[in-house]
């Protein structure tokens, strides 16, 4: 009952607020679908949906690729393996705000401070600093990179655990049949990791779509509205404009997308299990 209460009450309250014109300090009034219709017509919100998808899909794709690479490297037998297993977890255990600030500094165009600019200027490859975060594409790249860096160890560790659960006999049998390493990866490792990949992707998709800290600290949604995503836009509308009803609606908009993803994956997993 407690668990149901903890889940059902906040969600139902949020859904209710999305049907009201709740302003901070005022009682809410039911307005039906007005908030939803407003957002459907709001060009700012259209950009938010686009930005959120670009941010989420790019980050998750990068995490999957690098997580797999990390797991493969750490799965192999070599001398400093345990040390590097610990080291690779560093981004995951570091505070998100610290990560965001660090990456902001790294992309900074302030002379003598931004890491990338300093390296490129010192190497003589640039004569003037590049303002990485001044363009929509550059700013989006910066927040995606920071989010990827923070999140890929989770994938790596999960995949590593998955790889360790794959029976060694399968690899031996494949080797006896003359399968080269990439075929073993394709036909043994990847199918063995299928469930782990699906679950980690789904979980991270949800976390990333709801991510606030990195974007807020690094760009505040700028330049202009180029990196404004669901969470930052929802915050701005709810806390700066004091329009709670509309702010909540922005977050609720992402729910059907997430619910569909969860339903699809659950169905897939259940089908696999019953087959």
């Amino acid at each position, binding site marked *: 009952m407690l668990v149901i209460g903890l889940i059902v009450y906040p969600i139902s309250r949020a859904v209710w607020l999305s049907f009201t014109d709740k302003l901070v300090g005022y009682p809410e009034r039911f307005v039906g679908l007005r908030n939803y219709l407003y957002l459907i017509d709001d060009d700012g919100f259209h950009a938010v949906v686009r930005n959120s998808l670009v941010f989420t899909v790019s980050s998750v794709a990068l995490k999957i690729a690098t997580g797999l690479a990390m797991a493969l490297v750490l799965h192999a037998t070599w001398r400093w393996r345990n040390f590097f297993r610990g080291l690779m977890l560093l981004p995951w255990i570091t505070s998100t705000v610290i990560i965001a600030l660090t990456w902001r500094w790294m992309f900074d*165009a302030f*002379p003598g401070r931004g890491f990338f600019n300093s390296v490129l200027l010192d190497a003589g490859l640039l004569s003037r600093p590049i303002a990485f975060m*001044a363009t929509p594409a550059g700013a989006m790249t910066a927040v995606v990179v920071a989010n990827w860096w923070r999140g890929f160890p989770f994938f790596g560790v999960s995949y590593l655990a998955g790889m360790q659960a794959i029976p060694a006999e399968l690899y031996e049998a494949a080797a006896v049949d003359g399968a080269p390493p990439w075929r073993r990866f394709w036909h043994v490792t990847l199918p063995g990791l299928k469930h782990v990949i699906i679950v980690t992707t789904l979980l991270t998709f949800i976390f990333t779509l709801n991510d606030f800290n990195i974007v807020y600290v690094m760009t505040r949604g700028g330049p202009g509205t180029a990196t404004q995503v669901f969470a930052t836009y929802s915050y701005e509308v709810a*806390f*700066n404009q004091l329009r709670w009803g509309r702010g909540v609606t922005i977050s609720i908009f992402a729910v059907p997308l997430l619910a569909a993803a969860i339903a699809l994956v659950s169905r897939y997993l259940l089908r696999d299990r019953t087959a």
Partner: protein
Amino acid sequence: MRDARLTRRNFLAGAVGASAAFALPGVAAPAVKKGTSLRLWILKTYVEPTNKAIEAAAQRWAQKHGAAVTVEYFTFEDVQTKYVAAIENKNTPDIGQLETGAPARFAGMGQLLDLTSFARQVEGEVGRPPANVAPVTVIGGTTYAIPWYIMPAFWYVWRDVFEKNNVKLPSTFDEAKAAAAALNRPKDNFYGMGQSWNRTADGYGVMQSLMYSHGVGWATKDGKYQSIRTPKMQQVMKWATDIYKEGLQPADTLTWTGSGNNENFIAKNIAQTSNGPSITFAMENAVAKATDAKDRKAREEALANHLALPHPAGPDGRRMWAIAMSFGIFKTAKDPEAAMSLVAHLLSPEETVRVMNDSYGQFTPVLDKARAASKDYFSKNENYRTFGRAAEWFSATGWPGPVTAAAAEVQASNVLTDAPAKVIVDKWSNEQAVDWADKKIKEIYDTIGR
């Protein structure tokens, strides 16, 4: 919008308002109950000595009355979040420092006590604020907060750079832009200006100064919406976007946060920027922290060369948007009488001057007697003389009308700075951006006055 009935609390507030005002100097003050405990929320700025001075002033009152004051800080970053959370959780402080738009917003929500009678008493003892500052705290004829100081913005320039290049110090926005063009040396990573249209007061504040100085306001004198789709607003948008299009600023200017212009100015990457006196604070502090004689000389030269000019004027005059800080007392205050006594203590010229002396010029008192007492402080040098005149140019959010909840939301929605950003980043035309901003502003006025 507000409940017009005379509630018990309102009645009580009116009554205690009159009595608590007697806590002001020279008047027989009613005793504050021993053991009274108050929560005071104040703004934490970059200038740490100011924060400490306000806290110390509050503690002096507590000591005098055998009471307790818990000082809690908010910053520009979290001011909205903290107040919103407190209001929705019915956990507001007894007394809160309020920024420019807050009295109108919070009064509209019915959160603040009516301080009209208390304000009259304060006026009798400490004087009144200038006519351009007063409307920040008077909403619909009722006073909901007492103004204390304004935290202004000035036009910082490097005097030596201007002199070396024989460029006239700017007094208008057009002159500032012309000077930027004359001083711009991108090849040396030195730019003529650094003005970001970001989501901080350095962005929306300057945009308002630019608009008001060109005679553009989105509200009428009585606070109603009026269209900004005018030739004057086109002029404003042209200035705001040309400084980017013409390469007069570092390429990352739009991405600066609140400290970006401070850092770039102090590092001498830009010739001019709009900012509060926190730049002066940093430069005075830098001298104190010099490591050797050579370093000290360099820092002293830099301090002497940094010049705070009055904010540029436009074709319609010189109007500077600034943060006007006031004290409001929340209806949830457990002891409104004690709260007013504390506010009266903080507003006294003696305490005001003490805080101001630790403010490095960013605290410009607005009440008559405090202003008179601050004359010496503001005659320290050329920069301070300019700081001392800040109230003359002050224009509040929603000029030429009063500060209203709708006007405050226009500022908070970032529409004013998103409009030029749409031209600079998304390559919209100036006309498109003005039309877009006008539509958003109208929508705010259509929906906020419920």
